[in-house]
């Protein structure tokens, strides 16, 4: 009865011995989550159901992070709707501005998800939590609204794709570069409806931040979930955080995969994804002609303290290029505090960066760094679609924190190795 880690988690939550790709199952959920954009519609749907209450108040999280601190009156009304619902149902995990952060950094940091969990979130980057060895996937608002009432949802068991990364990572090659390279290789629908299991010595060597970044972008290849088998680093991360029991699963050696893709990391260059799709990944050396006007370093993809350290290591003692606005976007209040303690805040501000409060704002062209017509940005976020960060004639180039930081100094896309 061999299964992959994803199949084992789904089987356990469906009360089944075994599941197979293509089957439709009903699965129990350990956590359901929404944000200020998706939760209001979910709340409307929930209220149509006639349920007596949420299925478990400890397992419903609402994180207002997209248009917060409230960018306009309409956004303020949406957050107010979430707040009223949270009070009405006495939800302990409604995260008010000041205690919040970007959902996909905040939820794992708060210990609301652990290995072996099954989680849905009304946000496509909910796949991030797979880095902890959980099954976690994005859904829409109606799915969230119904799951808030009944604590379960339906899934089609995905096909399983295994990625094996071997070799050691060259300097300035990070989890971000691995995932951009991978999406470049398989395309934005290369893992459509499938599970991406990230394995191999290079993944074992990655820190948790790098693993979160990789799982975060599984959706950019169309995947249902991304997952990393839990190990000592996972255990160290959840120690003192995780609020519920957890289960460690691993794939059986003879588990069946629809594809196995091997990637040698030892010769990789840092990657840059050109407009207007994440699959347009190229080595950074091929991007050196691109002048930029904005650099965004942070987000749910790359806004963890490790990312801030990587950017600060490049920016400390240097100046952001005169034609560039460099926006630092830490993911949570805890990250901000740690940046202050470690002197990163000072390094960023002395370099001429602006440091934002945690928000999704600029990543989706919402607020706090919208692009004008013709402007180009390098960004550590996850999407570079047409108009993603502003005007439809602006352009977004995706990269790692080190590359974005170096580009901010150079005024064009480049690597830290090009800095004096």
């Amino acid at each position, binding site marked *: 009865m061999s299964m992959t880690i994803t199949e084992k988690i789904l089987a356990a939550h469906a009360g089944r011995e075994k599941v197979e790709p293509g089957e*439709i199952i009903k699965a129990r959920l350990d956590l359901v989550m929404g944000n200020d*954009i998706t939760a*209001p519609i979910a709340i409307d749907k929930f209220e149509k*159901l006639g349920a007596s209450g949420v299925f478990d108040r400890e397992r419903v999280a609402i994180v207002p992070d997209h248009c917060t601190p409230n960018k306009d009156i309409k956004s303020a009304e949406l957050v107010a709707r979430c707040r009223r619902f949270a009070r009405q149902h006495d939800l302990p995990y409604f995260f008010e501005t000041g205690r919040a952060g970007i959902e996909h950094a905040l939820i794992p940091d708060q210990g609301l998800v652990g290995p072996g969990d099954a989680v849905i979130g009304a946000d496509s980057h909910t796949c991030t939590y797979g880095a902890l060895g959980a099954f976690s996937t994005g859904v829409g608002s109606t799915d969230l609204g119904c799951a808030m009432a009944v604590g379960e949802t339906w899934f089609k068991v995905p096909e399983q794709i295994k990625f094996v990364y071997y070799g050691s990572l060259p300097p300035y090659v990070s989890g971000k570069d691995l995932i951009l390279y991978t999406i470049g290789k398989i395309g934005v629908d290369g893992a*459509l409806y499938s599970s991406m299991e990230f394995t191999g010595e290079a993944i074992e060597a990655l820190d948790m931040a790098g693993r979160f970044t990789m799982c975060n972008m599984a959706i950019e290849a169309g995947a249902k979930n991304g997952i990393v088998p839990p190990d000592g680093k996972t255990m160290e991360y959840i120690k003192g955080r995780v609020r519920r029991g957890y289960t460690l699963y691993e794939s059986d050696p003879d588990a069946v995969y629809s594809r196995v893709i091997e990637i040698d990391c030892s010769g990789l260059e840092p990657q840059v994804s050109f407009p207007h799709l994440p699959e347009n990944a190229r080595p950074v050396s091929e991007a050196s002609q691109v002048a930029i006007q904005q650099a965004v370093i942070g987000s749910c993809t790359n806004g963890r303290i490790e990312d801030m350290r990587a950017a600060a290591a490049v920016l400390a003692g240097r100046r952001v290029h005169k034609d560039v606005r460099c926006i630092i976007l830490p993911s949570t209040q805890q990250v901000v505090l740690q940046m202050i303690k470690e002197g990163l805040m000072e390094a960023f501000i002395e370099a001429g960066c602006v440091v934002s409060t945690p928000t999704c704002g600029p990543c989706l062209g919402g607020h706090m760094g919208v692009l004008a017509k013709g402007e180009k940005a390098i960004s550590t976020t996850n999407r570079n679609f047409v108009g*993603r960060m502003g005007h439809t004639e602006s352009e977004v180039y995706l990269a790692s924190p080190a590359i974005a930081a170096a580009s901010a100094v150079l005024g064009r896309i480049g690597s830290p190795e090009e800095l004096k």
Partner: protein
Amino acid sequence: MIQGKVHRYGSDVDTDVIIPARYLNTTDPEELAAHCMEDIDKGFTSRVSPGDVIVAEDNFGCGSSREHAPIAIKASGISCVIANSFARIFYRNSLNIGLPILECSDAVRAIRDGDEVEIDLARGLITDLRSGETFGAKAFPDFAIELINDGGLVEYTKKLIKQRESGSL
């Protein structure tokens, strides 16, 4: 039976061009519909008529989980989206809110922008009235048919809650 004019697009039509994030400060279907497809096709909202059909290539609806995307399409009057494939969250959202979607590569290959098409949803048949050709779409899984027959996920879940309350589940 659905009948309408085709608005044709390519691959990887993402949710940011279907409904840009700058309009996500509302959940009102009419307001969302007023900006539908704005960043890929500025003339869409003035050309679209009730009953019209979107035909696209691969991976339609990729990107964000925003249900605002299928809501905007539905509220703009579109009666069905036909594509080679859909991004998975968009697929789920469409089923959940009752926006008909069909996967049919043969139809996508043959149908041109501006064609008039007729769709028999129950049988999954698409007829191009220009050429007279009929194409069979990929069948929905049984569970999806149950969802559709129940009237979407909200109605399905209401049934589930009633069953639980009566102790039959």
